[in-house]
């Protein structure tokens, strides 16, 4: 949606978003180091007959 609509940022929004994204990048890097070969996704998914 961001690409379609375009995002205009004032300084405080840009700063807040940058801070959030930096945090998210840290989180991503932390999870990169985990061995997941034996783990299936835990997405909730249920089928009814």
């Amino acid at each position, binding site marked *: *949606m*961001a690409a*379609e*609509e375009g*995002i205009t940022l004032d300084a*405080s*929004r840009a700063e*807040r*978003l940058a*801070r*959030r*994204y930096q*945090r*998210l990048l*840290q*989180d*991503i890097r*932390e*999870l*990169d180091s*985990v061995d*997941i070969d034996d*783990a*299936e*996704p*835990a*997405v*909730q998914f*249920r089928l*009814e007959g």
Partner: protein
Amino acid sequence: MSDSIPPFLSLARLADLLRERHVSPVEVARAALERIAHVDSRLNAYLLVTEREALASALTAEAEIRAGRYRGPLHGVPFALKDLFLTAGVRTTAGSRVLAQYVPDTDATVVARLREAGAVLLGKLNMHEFAFGVTNVNPHYGAAHNPWDIERITGGSSGGSGAALAAGLCAFSLGTDTGGSVRIPAALCGVTGLKPTYGRISRFGVLPLAWSLDHVGPMARSALDAALVLQAVAGRDPRDDTSSDAPVPDYASALQSDVRGLRVGVPWHFIEGSVEPEVMTSFRAALDTLAGLGASVTEVALPRLPLSRSLFSSIVLPESVSVHERYMTSRADDYGPDVRARLEAGLLLPAARYLRAQRIRRLLQADFRAALAQVDVIMTPTCPMMAPRIGEETVRIGEREESVTDILTLFTRPVNLVGLPAVSTPCGFTTAALPVGLQVVGRAFDEATVLRVAHAYEQATAWGERHPPA
């Protein structure tokens, strides 16, 4: 408020009085409405008081009880809802300007079940916008204020529920918990809050935050009261595909057993160094109390707990973006700045990262499963700190300066990731007279045990008998 109906009566005691017709539902509703009018201007717990509807429901309940058609322990009992449960004909804002005018035409399943049980809805409660935060500092409707110190936050996102219960403005409430939003306000406001097992309570008609993490949970003034509410709302709902058909036991009966022989596990490796000293003192004292009741306390290893923050953000952000895509496209300026920034950051997370987090989540679940094969329950403080001041964004614990949100959710969000039941019950007060919460985590669909432990602890202590000055 009427002298004959003290505002802090437990639901269980109030139910006895109603059943025996010592008080009438209309008297009880009027007393609660009077107290809300008298007290809530300082707390801002209620976003909407449905006085006319409440009195009409109370009148119906009164007539039914008088005619001998008593429905059970919630009949005629006044309650209030976090403002994200759909209520037919009653505005439901989710604490947001985006939904400021939204009036649903249907009830959430849990609301319908409470109406069926004869409970009397007093109104809709303040919350963190769209449940996406734990301070309940709401940019649109104002912060909810903690009754123990109105300069401090209630915790959130079900902050209005915590404040209303602590101040005697309802007998019980329903909240939702995605990363701790029932347990955190329960802890910071000094009441009891239960996050049941994922699937235990229907979420049909409950505005979502993140589908794989959201839980509905009762908040009340005791574990017994929470059990009575859980009894009324638990169980399979054909309109919620994630709801479970696991049998619903008699929770109140399960509280009768003691805790002798109970095995308590504590993940000390994750707790030490991360908790304010006064909270740690209360937590250790709570463990000692339980040991005195016959429980044994040992350490358990949960090696992947430190990944919880990263796991949580990698899952909650993309799921919430998906929920909000429509409004973020058309109404972005109507969001408050903190929630908007979270959603915009979530837009930037690649799908593979979300799925990686969901896979690591399995490993965390395996850790909890292994630990709960060794012990019956796991305990932590609910929050590492007492209620922060309104507007505080970071706090220092030990050597570390961290965000209030990260600190408050440290021990609660892992339990959403694994979907297990957890209760927060009061376990002390700081020297500033602020409540401290004890978290008890159990095995899947074993709400009975976590409630039993909380009940036994409450019976052995008197924390729930203290009330705020408001």
